[in-house]
Every structure is written in structure tokens, then in C-alpha cells.
């Protein structure tokens, strides 16, 4: 396959920006953790978009799997074994198992009914986290644990104290996850998902088991979501039930819409806009920052219904 520079220009720009982030972030007034936040929220939004943008199914309960990943890693390090990789693994598995079990119960629903059932299941996990005080710390969140350094034998990654080490740790995981997601989307399975998005009835008539494919897409999406949640918990050294709450699911949907649901990188751009805007506005106008975020969202929906990336692409075509 020939490498086409023009086709890959966007990929190259995004990776160069991500890899060099610590070098320029401070110069423009940001800080390394802000970059980490963008990468992690970007992964979460891209995971949601796997289902929302590429399969055409709207979920409003993805925060549940984000939170399961977060609680998975936090509780593993707190109660089982102080090991970051084990915690990540448990977090991702917790999200994946929950999604695999809940999936068959909801894949027969479509549209707003699907969205509502996902909210309902998501809230179940929220209330478990709030009520089960002795284990989860209840509304106060899970504290008294800390991400641990990773010993690779040859060298140690000092993610405990160095913000830059943790950024690259998150970025490597992000790269692996995004690469995997892209290859799934380019496989026949991924093409089938897009066919479902474009015309579900026709896909069914071809003889494809649509519900099974939606379940698989849901599972992939929730698994990556749990991975993002686990990274989020590691970044904060803290989990609280808010990360499971349905409004958090809404924030992920907003990120996808801001960036553009039809584009692979759109949700990352949307997450970057949301995270940076929130960080910036809440320092500038600390009382009314939510109002301005809402305003930006309304403006994007009205004027660029396909999101920022959709708008850029249309420009390029013109």
C-alpha cells in the first residue's frame, strides 16, 4: 500500500501535536495535566463514538462503564494489590463484563428507547456506588490510594511523581486503543457497523444479524470507555460517583457532537475543546462558566451540525 501524504496529513498533525504536547503546553498557559485530561477524555469520547458515530446508536449511559473502569482500578489498588497494570486490567474487565451482560437486554431497543434504557442501567451503578459506603466511600468517593510506578525490568516509569511520565503513559495506552479501534473499523466487521448506521433494514435483509453486531459494537465501545475511566481515576488518584452519573454520559455525547460524530478524530477534537474551554472559562468567569459552555454547544449545533471536523472537511471539499 502506498503511503499517501495528503490522506494522512490529519493523522500526522494530530500525532505530532500529541507527542510534542508537553513542550508547548506550558508556553500557551496550560499545564501537563490539562493535556493528560484531553487525551483521556478524548479516548472516552472516541470510545462512545464507536457506537454513536460509527454504528449510529445513541447511548446516554456510557458514564457507567467509565465509572466502572475508574472504580475497578481504584478498588484494586486500594484493597487487592498496589499494582497499576493489574488495576487497569481489572477496571477494563469490570466494564467489559458489565457491558457484555447488559448488552443483550438492550440491543433490541432503538433510538430514544435505547438511550433511556442505557440511562437506567447506568444509574443502577451510580446508586450502588453512592449507597455502598463501606466499600466505595459513598458520595465522598474512594480515597487513600495512589497510582503506583511501573517496573518494566529494564527501567521504571515514574508515573507517581512525574506529570510528564504519566502523560506519556496515558498517550501510549491511548495510541494502542485508538489504533485497535481504527483497525476494527477498517475490518469487514467495522464496515458492517457503518452499513447498520446507514440503513439498518437493508443490512438486515442482506442476512446480517443486526442485534448481534450492535451488541458487539456496544461491547467494544464500553470496553474502551472503561479503559478511559481507569486512566481518569489514575490521573486523579481518586474516584467519586459523579463519574458514573448520567450527566457525565451527556458530557461525552456533547464532546462527540462538538467535534463531529462522522469523523474518526472528531471526538478527540471535541474533548479538547470541551476540556480546555471548561478549564479556561471557569478561571475567567468562575460563576457563569457553564452558561458559556452551553452557548458554545448551541452555536456548534446550529451552525456546524456536523461538528468542528465536519465543518473542516466540508471546507476542504469545497
Amino acid at each position, binding site marked *: 500500500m502506498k503511503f499517501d501524504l495528503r490522506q494522512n496529513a490529519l493523522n500526522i498533525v494530530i500525532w505530532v501535536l500529541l507527542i510534542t504536547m508537553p513542550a508547548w503546553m*506550558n508556553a*500557551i*498557559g*496550560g*499545564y*501537563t*495535566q*490539562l493535556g493528560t*485530561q484531553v487525551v483521556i477524555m478524548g479516548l472516552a469520547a472516541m470510545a462512545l463514538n464507536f457506537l454513536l458515530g460509527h454504528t449510529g446508536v445513541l447511548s446516554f449511559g456510557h458514564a457507567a462503564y467509565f465509572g466502572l473502569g475508574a472504580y475497578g482500578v481504584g478498588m484494586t489498588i486500594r484493597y487487592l494489590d498496589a499494582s497499576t497494570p493489574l488495576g487497569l486490567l481489572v477496571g477494563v474487565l469490570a466494564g467489559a463484563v458489565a457491558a457484555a451482560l447488559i448488552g443483550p437486554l438492550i440491543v433490541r431497543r432503538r433510538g430514544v428507547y435505547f438511550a433511556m434504557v442505557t440511562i437506567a442501567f447506568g444509574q443502577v451503578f451510580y446508586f450502588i456506588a*453512592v449507597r455502598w*459506603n463501606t466499600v466505595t466511600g*459513598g*458520595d*465522598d*468517593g474512594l*480515597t*487513600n490510594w*495512589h497510582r503506583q510506578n511501573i517496573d518494566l525490568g529494564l527501567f521504571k516509569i515514574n508515573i507517581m511523581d512525574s*506529570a510528564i511520565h504519566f502523560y506519556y503513559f496515558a498517550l501510549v495506552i491511548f495510541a494502542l486503543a485508538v489504533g485497535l479501534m481504527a483497525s476494527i473499523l477498517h475490518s469487514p466487521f467495522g464496515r458492517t457497523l457503518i452499513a447498520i448506521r446507514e440503513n439498518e433494514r437493508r443490512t438486515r435483509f442482506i442476512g446480517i444479524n443486526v442485534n448481534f453486531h450492535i451488541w458487539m459494537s456496544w461491547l467494544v465501545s464500553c470496553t474502551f470507555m472503561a479503559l478511559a475511566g481507569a486512566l*481518569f481515576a489514575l490521573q*486523579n*488518584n*481518586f474516584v*467519586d460517583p*459523579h*463519574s458514573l452519573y448520567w450527566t457525565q454520559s451527556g458530557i461525552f455525547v456533547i464532546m462527540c457532537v462538538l467535534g463531529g460524530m462522522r469523523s474518526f478524530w472528531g471526538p478527540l477534537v471535541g474533548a479538547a475543546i470541551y476540556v480546555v474551554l471548561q*478549564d*479556561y472559562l*471557569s*478561571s*475567567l468567569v*468562575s*460563576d457563569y*462558566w*457553564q452558561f458559556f459552555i452551553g452557548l458554545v454547544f448551541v452555536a456548534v449545533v446550529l451552525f456546524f451540525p456536523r461538528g468542528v471536523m465536519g465543518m473542516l472537511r466540508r471546507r476542504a471539499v469545497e
Partner: protein
Amino acid sequence: MTTDGNSWNPTRRRLLQAGAVLGTAQLASPFVQLARAADVVRIGMDNPLTGTYAALGKNEQTGAQMAVDQINAKGGILGRKVELLIEDSTSGDAGVAVQKARKLIDRDQVNFIIGNVNSALAQAIANVANEKRVFHVVPGGHTDSVTGKNCHWSTFRVCNTTQTEANAVASALVKKAGKKWYYLTPDYAFGHTLQAGLEAAGKKLGVTKVGGALTPLGTTDFSSYLIKAQAANPDVIIFLQAGDDAVNALKQAVQFGLNKRFHLAGAQQELEVLEGLPPEARVGTWVFEWYWNQPNVPHVADFVAETRKRTGGHVPTARHYFGHTAIWTCALAAQKANSLDAVKMARAMQGFELPPEIALMPDGAFYRAGQNQMIGDLYVGHAQSKGASDPEDLFVVDQVVDGKKVSPTLAETMCHQDWPKA
């Protein structure tokens, strides 16, 4: 225009685009931080400005800003000007509070961090501050663990522990109302520990608990809880809500006519809540942590007068007092240690007695060594619908309780501080 073929030919659209870019650049200028002078001491305030605790958080901020101005007028901290940086922690999202704490510490390099009204958020910020070795003051988050089980050498607290408040009010309640109590408790750390504190204090006085309900933070409709409380037929219905939750709960209780049949009471009460209530709902026995109407205590009148200038004539509440004291704690710590090193400052504050113009209490106030908890006076009394001398005099202090007598002992707090080896 030059006659050169490659000349730059601005079209109208280009110009508009350039204008838009320039305009955006103007907006971005605060984000692109100018190099800050090194001769400034920065205090970061990570407190709720939106949500159910917004009013309390803003009052703490007003008190804090007043203290900053006073300190700057007196020459600053160690001769350096003080700058207060404000971040909205939201009222209940600890993830945001933690993120903001890291932003203040990592990006803005604050020397001190202040926060939070919400106990859960206060604990979360305390953990970050301890990890980063930053001097932290909690102005008004009450749960015991902040200076108890999860205490840190780096975290100081101005407001009382929930157990202290419960001890202060329990005997007054038994005397006034009776021994069968029903609890309406907000479902998070502050509520849980306050209820546990009241139960422990009540047990010593022979109180029985006839029931209780947990209400989620931000509840607006308390009717189902009030019906349950009524059915239990208690002597006292104890309201442990704070902020807007307390306003809603009490308003509805009075609408239901519960105040005619039961004694409505609680532990902690705030002037903000009483002001938010309709006059007929200003009822019950409560404990205030600070009250503005203390005619016999020196310096209080000055503090009230200075606050009135900043609030459009309103009197200071306990929240103004907390914010003010929190900032002065930072300044006094730096002064006593003659350093901005967090460990040295924290050591200097062990057992530190606040000067009377900061303490503003009849028996004074000090930070207890080994726990970093401020211990001052508490004001037990009852709410009144209308003030006689001042419309904001909505509370009658029946008894000033010395915090030293009602605070749990250091051993009871289970606080163990891990000091860094210097």
C-alpha cells in the same frame, strides 16, 4: 498596491477572517499567562461558586478577599503582595475539585490552597495538598475525618468538627424538646458524621432514635421524607441539611404544619439559610459557629462594619468569618515561621493562639496541636422570625459554649499525622 504580479491582494473575506483571528487572540490573552512577578504570594481558593453551596462559597470568598486586602494594606505576607486566585470547584463534583486543586498547585504555583464548603471535596483537596506538600486550610467543610481519621499535617481547619457541634447542641435539645429524635440526613460525609455525632452525644443523655431518612444532596422535594418523619411520631425532627437543601426542607416542613406538632431542630445552622426562609419558617434550636451580634466582644463591631461595606449593607455570616480566618491563618503561619515552606509553617501553627482581632470570639480560638483543628466558641440558641434591632438579627444566642469543653479529645479524633522527614 504594488504592481508586482505576486502582490498580496486582500479580499473582503480575508480581512474578515484576519479580524476574527485577531479578535479571538484578544480573548485568549488571559490564558496566555504573562510571566508573574516572583515577589507575589499566591493563595488559591477552590470553593463552590455554582450549585447548592454557591451562596456559602461566595460569602467565604468575600471574607477571604477582605482578609487579603487587609493583609496587603499591612504590607503583605513576608513583605510580598498577596494575590487570591479563585476556581469554581462545583458543589458536589470531587473530580472537578481535584482537577482545580492540581491546576492551582501545578500551573499557578500557589503557596496556599483554601477549600472547601463540601466536606467530601475538602477531603479530596486535602489529599492533593498533602501529596504536593502545600499548606491547606479548610474554611467550612465539617466532617470529622478531615481533622480526624484522614487528617494530614498540611491541612488546617477553621470550622468545627461535626462531633463538636453535636455535643454543643445535644443537651439544649433534650432540655427544650424531648428525647425521641428523628433524623433527616443529607446523604454524604457531612450528614453521616453529623448524625453519628448527634447519636453519640444523645446516647449519653438517654435519647432514643425513632427513625431517620437519608436525602440525596440537591433534593428539592422533601415531602416523602417529611411524611415518613411524621409517621414516626418523634419529639424532635432533626434537620441536618445545609445550604439550599436546608431552605427547601424547612420551608416544606412548615408548609406541612410540622412545626406546630413537633419541635424542629438540628445541629448546625447558618444565617444564609435563615435569611432564605420565609419568616414563619425561622424556627427551631440550632448551633451557630459564629454570630455577628456579639456586642461585648472587642473587634467584632469593626469586622461587621467592614463587611457591610463590601456586601451592600449585609452583616457577615459564619461563612465570611471562615473565609477571613482561613486567609489570616495563612498569613500568620508564614509570619510565625518566617518562611513559605509548608512544613515549617505547619509546625509553627501547632497550638497557635489566634489574635483577638482574628478570633472574634469571647474565649478566643487556637489550632490544636497534633490535629490542626481550630477550637473556638459555639453559639447555641434559637431562630427568630424577625430581628428587633436589625432585620438580619435572626438568631438569639442562648448560650455560648466553649469549644474546649465539648470537643472530642485528641485520642477520640483518631488523628495521626505523618510528618515528612525534613
